[in-house]
């Protein structure tokens, strides 16, 4: 459990917990409209429409995938061309050295391979993963509940903290808590 009144730990934000995804979407929208800049939603599974409600911009990942996919296609061709037509020209079944139709399946595979790997790599980079600093503040958000966290940057004064809690309640949170920074490890 979160130690609510631990003074020696640094406050990182206020979290509101919701029972169903629609309530979270509505609350997220209102939070953004209210003017909070630093907030994050936590869901046990991808919720359609949340990215719109949170006002997230389009991810740059597709461009990475495109560039690497294209590079994979070209590199696979160049490599096969070099091996079978330049470096070690071999006559296979009387076909020309540069038998491009035979190269296509490998070009296709390398396109997929580089595209896929670069997508995962880009995902890790853009999401700042692996993130060892933060830990799950409530295990139920990986199971059946939905959370909206308004981060500390928004609430520098004590007065704000109270107001933020009230705000979360007003947008329908079933439970509102303060979240403190914790070290690396589990506490159930």
């Amino acid at each position, binding site marked *: 459990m979160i130690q609510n009144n631990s003074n020696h730990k640094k406050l990182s934000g206020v979290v509101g917990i919701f029972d169903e995804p629609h309530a979270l*979407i*509505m609350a997220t*929208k209102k939070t953004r409209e209210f003017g909070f800049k630093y907030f994050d939603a936590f869901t046990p599974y991808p919720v*359609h*429409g949340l990215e*719109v*409600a949170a006002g997230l911009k*389009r991810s740059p990942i*597709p461009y990475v995938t*495109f560039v690497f996919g294209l590079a994979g296609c070209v590199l696979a061709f160049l490599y096969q061309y070099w091996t079978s037509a330049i470096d070690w020209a071999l006559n296979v*079944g009387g*076909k020309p050295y540069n038998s491009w*139709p*035979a190269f*296509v*399946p490998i070009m296709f595979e390398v396109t997929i391979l580089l595209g896929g790997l670069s997508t995962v790599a880009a995902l890790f980079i853009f999401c700042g993963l692996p993130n060892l600093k933060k830990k799950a503040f409530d295990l139920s958000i990986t199971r059946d509940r939905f959370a909206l966290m308004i981060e500390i940057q928004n609430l520098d004064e004590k007065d704000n903290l109270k107001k933020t809690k009230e705000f979360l309640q007003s947008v329908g949170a079933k439970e509102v808590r303060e979240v403190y920074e914790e070290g690396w490890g589990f506490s159930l």
Partner: protein
Amino acid sequence: MLTAEVRQVKNPGSLIAAPSVKTMFLVFSLIGVVTFMVGLFLDPKRMWFSFLHNHFYFLTLALGGLFFAALQWLTQAMWSAPVRRISEALTSFLPISLITFLILLFGIHYLYPWSYKGDIVLAGKSGYLNISFFVLRNLLAIGLWVFFAIKMIGNSLKQDKDSSLAWTNKNRVLSPIFIILFAITYTMVSFDQLMSLDPHWFSTIFGVYCFAGLFYSNLALTCVLTILLKRQGYLEGIVNKNHLHDLGKFMFAFIVFWAYIAFCQFMLIWYANLPEETSYFLNRMHGGWIYVSLFLLIGKFIIPFFILLPRGAKRNEKLLFNIGIYMLVAQWIDFYWIIQPQYAPDGPVFGLIEIGILLGFLGIFGLVVQKFLSTHNLVAIGDPRLVEAVTHHYQ
């Protein structure tokens, strides 16, 4: 809007067809009939090849409409409920293609070498490639499609009146049966009507190749018609950018699928290099046909692939419309490339006969589809998933 509370979708009614468009289609049909008559006297062989080409092209558009609709019932798809009726409308041409097939039978001796000449290879195939069996099985296949179209589309139309779930359930039983029969019969029909133009040649993937083309053009036409109706304001509040985006994704996927299948067919034949198989591609890689082959590689795959790749393109109504028309033309050229080298091995022949017959089919197709859309609702208004489909997309 995040909380669009739509409990009921307003029925857009049926199409009020502009008389000028109707007249245009009528004129096209007349041009077609005249070209058919004149062609029969001037150059019957060329006319029959063009007739087969357009018969098969419009047959696939109609059949594709039935396949698309059946696919939605089979998968219980929700997103497609607002556009399904438009693909259903295409099936109204299916009975006409039964008639055009019957007309085609008069040209059988011009088209299919197995019907007028014999050699050792053809003698071995005569158990399958003979006129009576050819006619019988093709009639049976097209008749089967017409039957399923009447049944399934009929159920869908009856649902408009009472919004009963029972009709959807009936189609959920019929659609898997249809899809299985479709796979078998369409393969057979494409083998018979197209592949047997060159009866010495064979390719087991040919049916799949034709299927890829069928879905390629059907998705494009569904998208084009949806946008046309949307522009006229019929689908206000029913079809939005997100539905077009879904259709765009589908189109993009089947551009890739077609290329994949086309290359599978080409590469295996090229690699194995067996004389009885290579003739098909050899004919299409010399003379004027090499340019058509290159067009298929670049124009039917690479160009639309890169145009439809970005997300914005699939949500751009105008672009989607133009690329849809382009894809329909590309598919027409694909069938041209399959069929006409048997008539003109040196290079493509394109003239008034080809244009006239195409216009004729286009006119009749336009007339029946327009008739369907102006007698029935433009949207499957009784579909239990329509409300959800209209609202499921945020924004």
